[in-house]
């Protein structure tokens, strides 16, 4: 039960939560559990937790977001790929770094953190289907 996921064993964990602020903690907990299964370090787990929470918060804070957020964690090859999807038709704010008090730049902190903490980040905006953010995190202790 406590054995780490084998490098070659693909495993998929999915979670569907209401797109409301009170459920983001559950998304954090879920992704932390999956990262722990991969034997990620505590710091790496914290990175993934924050990135997922930022992605969920970005969904919730945009007008026109979907009713639900779907979190998908793929543990293939010892790396953790996370997809955060909702049926809203919006993109994510441009990467910004907040060094002053401009509110727009503050709002861009979330995506900046995601890009900084994760190894690969991309997102797709589908006109009819919604928005999906994809993030990949590799453990330094488990190069793939």
């Amino acid at each position, binding site marked *: 039960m406590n054995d780490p996921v084998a490098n070659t064993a693909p495993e998929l964990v999915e979670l569907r939560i209401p797109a409301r602020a009170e459920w983001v903690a559950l998304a954090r907990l879920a992704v932390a559990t999956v990262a722990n299964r991969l034997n990620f370090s505590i710091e790496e787990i914290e990175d993934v937790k924050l990135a997922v929470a930022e992605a969920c918060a970005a969904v919730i804070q945009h007008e026109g977001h979907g009713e639900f957020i779907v979190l998908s964690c793929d543990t293939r090859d010892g790396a953790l790929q996370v997809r955060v999807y909702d049926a809203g038709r919006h993109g994510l704010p441009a990467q910004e770094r*907040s060094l002053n008090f401009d509110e727009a730049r503050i709002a861009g902190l979330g995506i900046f953190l995601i890009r900084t903490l994760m190894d690969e980040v991309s997102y797709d905006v589908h006109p009819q289907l919604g928005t999906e953010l994809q993030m990949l995190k590799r453990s330094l202790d488990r190069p793939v």
Partner: protein
Amino acid sequence: MDIKVNVRQAPSDCYVVDLSGEIDVYTSPKVKDAIGELIDRGVYNLVINLEKVRYIDSTGLGVLIGCLKRVREHGGSVNLVCSNPQIRKIFDITGLVKIFGIFDAEDAAMKALA
């Protein structure tokens, strides 16, 4: 999951806001309201103690930045107490270490406000 906010007046005439728990998109409005009430009362020199904060996200950072902006308009300042490396890391990578005074101990944070 929740956030606890405790406000106390320190002997040095500044106020200390103790935060305990997780500051995220759900709990940050409570933090914003508590500190906002203090600023509305004319308290412009604040120490915000994050020693018992286990987690903070960009919405929490936004609240702290907003508070700093408000007190600076009145010549005040906000110093943070934070020795947790995971929390400190967030301030480091966002560059916020350059605009907040961040201290390991509350005494030092209060002293720097004086």
